[in-house]
Every structure is written in C-alpha cells, then in structure tokens.
C-alpha cells in the first residue's frame, strides 16, 4: 500500500512489456480506443460488457470474474498492470475490483493512455493471444465496498468524499460537462460530504500528484484521518480513482468506494440531500 507497490511508471512499463508473468490490461468504457491502438501486448477488458452483470444492476460476481480472467488468460500469480483512458478512471475501477476479488499483485500504470499518448510512445493494433487459465477469484472483500444503508448511516459520522465536479456537488449539474445535461434523478450531494473533485489528485498529464501534495489536498479539504472514509461520484469510477489515492497511495485504513454513488443515492426515496457548495448539516 504505497506508491512503490501500487503504481508503475510509463518508463518501467515500456521496459517490461515482454516480461513473463506481467500482463498489461487496458480497461475502458469505450473500447474503440483499444481497437485503434494499444500498448504492445496488452489485452482489453470492457468496463460495461465484461465487468457489469448483464441483467442485475450490479457488477459481475466471483464466478463470473473467475471465468472472465480465465478466458482472458490471466493467472492468479500474474502481476496485472492496468491502464486506460479518462485519466485511468476505469482502470482504477478495475483495480478496486481486482482487489475486491483478492488478486495478489495488481498495479496502475501512472498516467494511463494519456501519458502514453503525450509521450508519443508506441501503440499497436495487434491483439495478443493468451492461453486460457483456470483463474480462481476469492470471495469479495466488502471492507472496500460501501452500500447505500451504510452511506446513509455515515452522514455526520464518517468522512464522505464527493469526487464529482463542484457544479455536480452543488446540484447545478447532473452529469460531467462532456455529456448532455438531461437526467432524471435529483441533484445535490450527501449531507456532510466534503467536495474534493478527483481531478485535484491528478496532474495535467494524468499522473498522480506527489504524496505530499495529495496529503495536503485532502487535509485542507477537511478529511479527518482518524475516521473511516467513503468515496462516491456518479457511477463509482471517478471515486475509484480517489479510493486508490486514499487507500493505496496515502495508505489510509478503512476506505470504501460507494459504487452505487449518486445515480443510486440521488434516486432513493426519503434520504437527505444537501444543495449548494457547502457540505451541509447531518
């Protein structure tokens, strides 16, 4: 649980593209990016097709995850290097997921696709073929996943970190500004949540800021290091990015990601909602 164990640099990645036992995995919602060119040797995981249950509103279970990784040729003892677009949002989500299902060695490529592109590093369209394995996922570790009832109980008690943009937090927007704004659920935030947009944790090139900078950002925002923390966003991927920062880079204990996030909370009947730029009262 530190920068050394959770993160690899683009330089390191470039030197280890063919190292046995290391599997590069691109994770995106829009996998046309992978199809148009990816890091040599990398396989792809589709956030929606591969990681979400096709029927229930939930992600794939232990058996489905085992089957997915077996089919993609990933072994329990492989080191998995995850990267993707959107400043590694979906890669961070997948990282959380690999941890949830107990994968031993998983790391994020710092900067993801963006840094790779800005550095003008090599892409390929060749899709590697990996022999199937018999992957065995562990039972889900719910110490890192928060559910709605727990979130409601955390109001005024635990650290709640809202990582959406300030306008989404305040209730002025329902979605990020690269999407049309029409949406049906209520706007606002969970009362007592502090607003620390995920982007505060990233440099312009998509890499994470230094541990010192990160500690200052969350400290200044009012995160109480003695309390447990739940991070949320709209659908749980941006908050995976912040979960990764708090848990894996800063080494905080008891940090959960609420993947139901605002799309669930903002549609619940009877729960409190705060509007405006302030956290609000419990």
């Amino acid at each position, binding site marked *: 649980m530190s920068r050394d164990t959770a993160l690899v640099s683009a330089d390191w990645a470039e030197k280890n593209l063919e190292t046995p036992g290391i599997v590069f995995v691109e994770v*995106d*919602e*829009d996998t046309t*990016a992978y199809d148009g060119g990816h890091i040599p040797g990398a396989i792809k995981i589709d*956030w*929606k097709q591969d990681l979400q249950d096709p029927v229930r509103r939930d992600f794939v279970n232990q058996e489905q995850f085992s089957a997915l990784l077996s089919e993609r040729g990933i072994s329990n003892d492989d080191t998995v290097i995850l990267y993707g*677009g*959107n*400043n590694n*949002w*979906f890669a961070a989500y997948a990282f959380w997921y690999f941890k949830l299902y107990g994968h031993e060695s998983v790391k994020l490529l710092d900067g993801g696709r*963006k840094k790779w*592109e*800005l*550095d*003008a590093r090599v892409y390929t369209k060749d899709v590697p073929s990996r022999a199937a394995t018999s992957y065995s996922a562990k039972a889900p570790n719910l110490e890192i996943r928060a559910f709605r009832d727990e979130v409601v109980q955390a109001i005024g008690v635990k650290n709640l970190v809202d990582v959406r*943009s*300030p*306008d989404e937090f305040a209730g*002025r*927007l329902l*979605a*990020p*500004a*690269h*999407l*049309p*704004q*029409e*949406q049906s659920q209520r706007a606002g935030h969970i009362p007592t949540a502090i607003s620390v*947009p995920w*982007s505060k944790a990233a440099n*312009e*090139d998509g890499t994470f800021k230094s541990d010192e900078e990160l500690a200052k950002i969350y400290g200044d925002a009012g995160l109480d290091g003695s309390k447990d923390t739940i991070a949320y966003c*709209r*659908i749980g*991927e*941006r908050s995976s990015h912040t979960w990764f920062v708090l848990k894996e880079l800063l080494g905080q204990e008891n940090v959960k990601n609420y993947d139901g996030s605002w799309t669930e909370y903002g549609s619940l009947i009877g729960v409190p909602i705060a509007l405006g730029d302030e956290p609000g009262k419990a």
Partner: protein
Amino acid sequence: MTSPAAANIAAGCAAPDQSAPLPASVDLQKETVITGIVNTAEGELVGGAYVRLLDASGEFTAEVVTSPEGVFRFFAAPGSWTLRALSRFGNGELAVDATRGVNEVALSVATV
C-alpha cells in the same frame, strides 16, 4: 449508433463519439455546446488530443479526446471558460465566452 450520447448517459461517464452529429435529444434552446477542432500551426487536424474545459477560476471541469478528425465537444453553461489542449504535437489554450446554443472554436497546438 443512432444516439451515442443517450447511450452513454445510461452507461457511464465516457464521452460520446466526438464527431457524431448532435443527437436529436439535445435541446439547443437549453444546452450550451462548446465545440471545435484542434489543429497545428500548419493547419493539420489533431486527433487523439486531450481537450480540457476549465471554469472561470481555472478549475478543471471536464476532458475529452478529439476524434480522428480533431473534433471535440462539451456541454457546458453560458459564461467564461478556458479550453486547454494537450497533444503529442504540443499544447494550446483558448478563452471562450459561451452563450446558449452552439459555440464553435478552433484551438491551435504547438510545442513551446
């Protein structure tokens, strides 16, 4: 893909196809669309550039990747914004005063 934006709302946070026509569901009486192209000083279109939308205080708001034709698009609100592009051909910046409807701009990148 008749309505990529609508599909993406249901699915998550990834940006819709940046070059696709505006979906019919987008109401231009209400939406403030900031759209344009990224090009080099020589006028070549830059696909794969990262374009960020910064608010009036310089805070990050959103980011998209340009289409192969160099096109990007944001759904914002009326007011002052800054567009900043990063690419393997260099970076660029542009201030925009957006009004309701479609605001079209061109953003040039160059190595410093």
